[in-house]
């Protein structure tokens, strides 16, 4: 049952790479946004919040379409990025990672925001009296206290990236070895009669990977809770 074709193996490896990069690369922005929404009041906050939720609310293909229009080689932003920085997403695995990151972003921000809101501000005050600058307070108190939410947010984004397909295929197509992830491979198999065996095999791989990610995240949370540093 687990004789994978080389194409499938390529898709699996690519999915791993894309999901890992999507989850980790969006984490700093996710933390910053979660913190902003948790702690600051500013004009247009509701709008920022809605913007963050956008990829959840729209059908994935629409999100992919928007990315294509904005960040394709001929897109408004995409052409600028290409010209000035030589950064291109179109038809590259980086584009797949970007699409997955965008789709997972609302999940990540929500959980991070929630844990930052739940941290005890009085501990941050105590840190400040002990001479910690706001930045050190954030790093040494807020972040560790919000750690379970940060890990959960990253795991959600990672899992979402594994399952993401609509935005990815619309934005960067499915190019074997470059942008064809497990999900787009499964989608392809769904289109032909009799592809079922392949579908379940690949689905099982995706589930296995996410199980490992979940176990790793539990461990990360428990380690910080149990141990000290």
């Amino acid at each position: 049952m687990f004789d994978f074709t080389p194409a499938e193996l390529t898709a699996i490896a690519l999915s791993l790479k894309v999901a890992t990069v999507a989850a980790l690369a969006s984490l700093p922005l996710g933390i910053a946004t979660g913190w902003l929404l948790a702690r600051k009041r500013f004009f247009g906050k509701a709008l920022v919040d809605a913007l963050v939720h956008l990829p959840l609310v729209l059908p994935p293909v629409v999100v992919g379409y928007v990315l294509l229009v904005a960040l394709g080689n001929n897109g408004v932003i995409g052409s600028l990025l290409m010209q000035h920085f030589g950064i291109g997403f179109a038809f590259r695995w980086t584009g797949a990672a970007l699409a997955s990151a965008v789709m997972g972003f609302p999940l990540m921000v929500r959980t991070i925001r929630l844990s930052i809101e739940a941290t005890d501000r009085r501990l941050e005050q105590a840190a400040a009296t002990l001479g910690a600058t706001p930045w050190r307070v954030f790093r040494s108190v807020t972040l560790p206290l919000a750690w379970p939410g940060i890990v959960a947010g990253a795991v959600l984004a990672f899992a979402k990236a594994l399952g993401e397909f609509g935005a990815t295929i619309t934005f960067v197509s499915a190019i074997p070895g470059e942008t064809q992830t497990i999900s787009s491979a499964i989608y392809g198999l769904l289109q032909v009669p009799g592809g079922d065996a392949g579908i379940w095999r690949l689905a099982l791989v995706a589930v296995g990977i996410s199980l490992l990610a979940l176990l790793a995240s539990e461990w990360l949370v428990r380690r910080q809770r149990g141990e000290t540093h």
Partner: protein
Amino acid sequence: ADAPLTVFAAASLKESMDEAALVFRRETGQQVRVSYAGSSALARQIERGAPADVFVSADVDWMDVLQSQGLIDAHTRSALLGNTLVLVAPKHSAAHAITLDQSADLLPLLGERGRIALALVDSVPAGRYAKAAFDSLGMWDDLRSRTAEAENVRAALLLVARGETPLGVVYGSDARAEPRVKVLGTFPEPAHPPIVYPVAKVKSSTHPQAAVFVRWLRTPQAMRIFRERGFSVR
């Protein structure tokens, strides 16, 4: 009959089927509601007892699957529409019309890094036709590594329309509806399996108008709607 007639139709038929449903209602008073999705999804749903009265597929294979399971009325089945397969480029591309035969070389048109947009070549019908055509014209080995495979043929069309890829292969009906692309050439019919959209009444349907609608789709009046959108009538 009061109950609306439920038609499951391949997503690529949306515009014409919407209009056909409208006209049919005007003529007969029978309301028609159409559920559009990929042919594969619709076929699987019919396998699972979906309340569809009529199925219009973009894919002969899936209709065959249903027929072999006795889920459609075989005697109502017919090849409703045909289509052509065309090579398109962005409207403002410098590429010229070419003849698609054994001697044609598309690589220069792709340039250094350009890709050719197709529907998924192993699964979505339009992609499978395109792959078959390139294969029989001896171009597939060159192009294999230069494809950008989209979820469906309209998504491939979009890539060309936005100039993301210098070339694409889509149906003639698609090319005609998209002003931002131009047709460089039409693939010769023999190069790929015939493009057929079969229609049939679903076996389990008890709607009295189901067979009527299937028959009506073949009337000249209905055919005009499809022809206007670039489908060929078979």
